[in-house]
């Protein structure tokens, strides 16, 4: 197993353990997006710094576990998750190192990142801005305003990854408010579109690096499974939007061969 996969698997384990011990929800959303975050935060040689915005702020646990994996925060910090008086709240908090914007209400981060990216381009900063959106979040009109704006401004230092797990709070995205053909829609908005398996870390990483070199804003549609890699969570992704992980989940996870699902 590669160093990258090691990191990704440790983050998933951490998500399960913390969700169980703190009895917190959104575990399936966190498992869906964690590999995208690991690929984004995994250290690279001689590359510009990345600013990562987790627009689907309810998957905060995935972000915090990733920040711990890459030493932005300590184990002690992470242990404060969901505690009284803690900045490690159930939704993403900008007071945490490595977090540029608090999120929790959907449809905010892309426009904010657009402002940041434009400001950076005007002062010749090399920071690359990456926004991670959920697919259900695309129901928000503010995201489509922002997609238009970023493409219109032609920002090459801003890209997005869509966590395309096909589920939202109550049902499938296609049964809620049809998104398909998503890639064609985004392409028609003048975004360069790439598709990837959102749990194949090495390929994801290649796509991220390729997008960073583009002069046109790029959208990577990362196909994921809510709850990956646990079968019952993937089968009942909506349920585990609301339920915490259990000891049984952790035991089954420990017996799995990493990324062979």
């Amino acid at each position, binding site marked *: 197993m590669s160093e990258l996969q090691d990191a990704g698997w440790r983050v998933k384990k951490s998500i399960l353990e913390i969700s169980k011990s703190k009895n917190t929800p959104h575990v399936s959303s966190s498992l869906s997006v964690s590999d995208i975050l690991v690929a984004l935060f995994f250290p690279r040689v001689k590359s510009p710094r990345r600013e990562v915005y987790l627009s689907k702020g309810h998957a905060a646990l995935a972000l915090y576990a990733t920040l711990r994996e890459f030493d932005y925060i300590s184990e002690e910090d992470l242990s404060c998750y969901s505690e009284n*008086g803690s900045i490690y*709240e159930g939704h993403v908090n900008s007071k945490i190192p490595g977090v540029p914007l608090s999120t*929790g209400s959907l449809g905010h981060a892309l426009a904010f*990142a657009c402002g940041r990216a434009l*400001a950076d381009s005007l002062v010749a900063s090399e920071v690359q801005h990456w926004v991670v959106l959920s697919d259900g979040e695309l129901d928000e009109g503010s995201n489509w305003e*922002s997609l238009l704006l970023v493409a219109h401004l032609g920002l090459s230092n801003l890209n997005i990854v869509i966590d395309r797990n096909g589920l939202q709070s109550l049902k499938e995205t296609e049964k809620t408010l049809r998104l398909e053909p998503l890639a064609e829609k985004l392409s028609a908005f003048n975004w360069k579109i790439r598709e990837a398996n959102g749990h194949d870390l090495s390929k994801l990483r290649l796509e991220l690096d390729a997008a960073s070199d583009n002069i046109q804003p790029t959208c990577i549609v990362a196909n994921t499974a809510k709850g990956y890699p646990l079968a019952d969570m993937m089968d009942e992704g909506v349920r585990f939007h609301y339920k915490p992980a259990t000891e049984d989940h952790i035991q089954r996870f420990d017996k799995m061969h990493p990324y062979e699902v």
Partner: protein
Amino acid sequence: MRKHLVSRRLERAKEDARPFLVVGDLGYGVIEEFECQFPSRFINVGVAEQAGISFCAGLADKFLPFFYSIGNFPSFRALEQIRNDVAHEGWPVAIVSLGAGFSYGTAGYSHHAIEDAGAVASIIGMDVFTPSCVHELDHLLTLHWKNPRPMYLRLGSSETCSYEHPLFDSQYYSVYKTGGTSLALLVHGEIVHQVLEAVESIERNVAVFSAFHFNRLSEKLVSELLTYERIATIEEHSSEGGFGMRARASLASAHGDKFLSLGVDTYDSHLGGSRAYLLEQNQLDSESIANRLLGFLDGR
């Protein structure tokens, strides 16, 4: 006041690299000079107020963005963006709403800005201002430049001011007219001109104050107002949740022995916890409420 605002921003932009004008597809005949002179610090985000406000919050790390729009568009349409991305994150975005009150009268209720100040001022960290004239506007712009903070600025239509009125700059009010001790008129916004005409017509000796900070009255103004027998507030905004209600709350708080208001007053946006914990932090748990009530009853 829109021309005055943009011309002042233009002047400032010549000596300061931070002013950045963002418009929501509005400003015909007003914003062109800024765009022409500072094209890299001007963006029309289109008819997209929600994205526009969050975009400004993103810019505010390196610039001083002004989001220029009218009426209810930059407030009600983007209220959550103002709350989450500007106010609670503390980014110094100035949101400019033209057409305060009935300035766009014939345009219909979509353009009547008579509830926006109450809505925006309810957001913790958002200061709402309605200057009565360009002098007060200048003062607010200078304050914002020296100490950038989130600000919602409601502008009326007059571009000049012929009244000489001393402005108490750190206290957010000016005195248009002094007179007697029987009645103080506390006015919010450009309607001060109608008030002055009315005062002239009734031929009574009354004082006229312009209080342009919607959220609350300053201590100095409260103490000055309390020397009058009666106080009336006048605003071009809904009375429900309006300046008058807030002014009365400021005046009532000066009478701590008669009025007590318990609410969320020490909220820290970035610290989480259970409801019980958050109530306790705001002294709204049952034990704190009881102690505060006893203290109130016993005059402590």
